């Protein structure tokens, strides 16, 4: 697949703060690519370097194979949708969208044609004469996208574009973004700290942490096979247990010795040696919970515990189960909720179990992942 954007060992410092440390990543043509991470991870810096608002201290940025590292922002075929929209308050919606074409001195009829096309794309043909302070947040968002797309950029950069919207609107805008991406077919780079947004729309996600790339991959891979403790912790909910490898049993499975959890079976694809320190990460929805013990099986880990928290959320219930003094979070889907079934309550003694394939072990290096 052709590469649209390539970062080659890009570093950037702001005073003492190292915003990016030797970041290398490549983004395919036409891809919906997300940069995901907590605030301060360097994702916005990466975007600003690509837009041209900042220049890297070292490294190169390529766009379609051309070095654009030192090109000013107005000469890059890249456009940005800003977090606060940054619509021009003194111009109407029509003129906001037309801005890029006016700067490029396009003929009037062409401007009109292009703006009409954009207004149809964002489904806002009736609002042309309003000014930005006369439309809603979601509408501003769409105008910002149209304004950025009208110059036909090769890459569209979206800097936390949904952060200022409420939940319902955010979900609708995500679908809209996905539709617009399908229609225009260019590369979208989406910066967000919200994992559900990134998971919902991205072809691939890069997880950034303290200026470094932790993992790049499709959403499923990031969720189901996180490569580091940080990724496992950042994406979704998870319970970590500390321990070390006790013995390899069979080809793909190892028995790990956890603090307070003797002999947990888990899938081992990391070629770990006996005694290596590890984390065991288990997603709450992978754990089964019941008042009755399950049938035994060599690859199923079963523990008995006591329910500490019960949070009913309609489609599922979240439990905090205390096992040997360690709280494990468990979610139970109500795919077949029976009202006459005896519900699990606070302080109940319960059995929890998970299959060895559903818990993954992560190397715990001595320098210490938090």
């Amino acid at each position: 697949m052709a590469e649209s954007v390539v970062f080659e060992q890009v570093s950037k410092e702001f005073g003492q703060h190292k915003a990016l440390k030797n970041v290398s990543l490549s983004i395919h043509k036409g891809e919906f690519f997300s940069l995901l991470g907590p605030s301060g991870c360097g994702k916005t810096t990466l975007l600003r370097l690509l837009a041209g608002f900042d220049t890297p201290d070292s490294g190169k940025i390529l766009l379609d194979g051309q070095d654009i590292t030192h090109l000013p922002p107005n000469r890059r075929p890249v456009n940005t949708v800003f977090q606060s929209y940054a619509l021009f308050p003194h111009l109407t919606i029509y003129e906001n969208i037309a801005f890029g074409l006016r700067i490029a001195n396009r003929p009037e009829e062409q401007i009109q044609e292009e703006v009409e096309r954009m207004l149809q794309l964002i489904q806002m043909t009736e609002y042309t004469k309003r000014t930005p302070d006369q439309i809603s947040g979601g509408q501003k968002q769409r105008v910002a996208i149209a304004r950025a797309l009208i110059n036909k950029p090769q890459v569209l950069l979206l800097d936390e574009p949904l952060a200022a919207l409420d939940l319902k609107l955010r979900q609708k805008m995500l679908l809209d973004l996905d539709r617009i991406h399908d229609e225009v077919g260019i590369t979208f780079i989406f910066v967000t700290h919200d994992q559900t947004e990134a998971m919902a729309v991205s072809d691939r996600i890069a997880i950034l942490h303290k200026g470094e790339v932790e993992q790049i991959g499709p959403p499923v891979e990031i969720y189901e096979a996180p490569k580091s403790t940080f990724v496992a912790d950042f994406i979704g909910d998870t319970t970590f247990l500390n321990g070390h490898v006790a013995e390899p049993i069979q080809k793909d499975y190892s028995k790990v010795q956890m603090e307070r959890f003797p002999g947990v079976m888990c899938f081992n694809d990391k070629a770990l040696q006996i005694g290596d320190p590890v984390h065991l990460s288990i997603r709450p929805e992978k754990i089964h919970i019941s008042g009755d013990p399950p049938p035994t099986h060599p690859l199923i880990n079963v523990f008995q515990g006591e329910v500490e928290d019960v949070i009913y959320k309609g489609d599922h219930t979240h439990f905090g189960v205390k096992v040997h003094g360690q709280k494990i979070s468990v979610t139970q889907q109500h795919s077949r909720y029976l009202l006459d079934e005896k519900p699990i309550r606070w302080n109940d003694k319960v059995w929890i179990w998970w299959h060895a394939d559903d818990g993954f072990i992560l190397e715990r290096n001595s320098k210490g992942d938090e």
Partner: protein
Amino acid sequence: MTLPSFGWLLLFFLIPSLIIFAYALKPEDSFGGVGEGWTFDTILSIFDTNYFMLIWRTLWLSCLTTLFCLVLALPVGYQLAISKPKWRRLLLILLVIPFWTSFLIRIFAWKTLLHPEGLFKKLLVAFHLASPEATLLYNSAAVLLVMVYTYLPFAVFPIYAAASKFNFQLIEAALDLGASRIEAFFKVFVPGIKKGILTAMVMVFIPAIGAYVIPDLVGGSNSEMIGNKIAQRTFNDRNLPQASALSAFLGLVVLIPMALVALWTKRSKVIEAEARNKE
């Protein structure tokens, strides 16, 4: 408007203005006082070619002063707003420092600088920018220079105040959409601080049009302004009605554009409110 502020306005603005307008409608008397009865003769007497030249000069000097102040203040305000706080504080102090010196002393300083033996003149001659015979003082250019110098801070402060509230991400957005820095400055920054520019224009134009001390000290007989004529009519000629007629004219020149501005901003607010109500 609340009652105390209305009382204040009445006492210190409306009543004095009305007295001036009333005096303009009185005849002069030969002993330097105000005559009996009412007449339009005094007002008609200012529509004289001599006065016309004076009014015309006052207007273009004030307009040019306002224009130069704006041109100089815009980049200063922009730079102040994007400077780091530490630098901004220093630059603002530098702007305020001249105010610690009396206005008159600063004008005399310019007189010394522009004097045929003055430093400024010598520098210009040294760089072959002026001939040794050129006179820099006592002409309209000197008046303009000193007025721009004097009123520049009155343009910088409102522009800086507006610029510090300006969202500079809009400049990035303009650059992102292909605009050069210059285009972004004129198409996004300048319209974005429109109100500050308007305030700056008023703050410079009003004192400029009423200037009296500056043309009196650095101007010559052919660079007099209305302010000088009013002073001359009041103190030398003891002709209060004519001085009042000139003052009234000056007042109208200032008040009419301000009323138009006020009306225009009110109208645009009404339009905005209507547009919102339609939603």
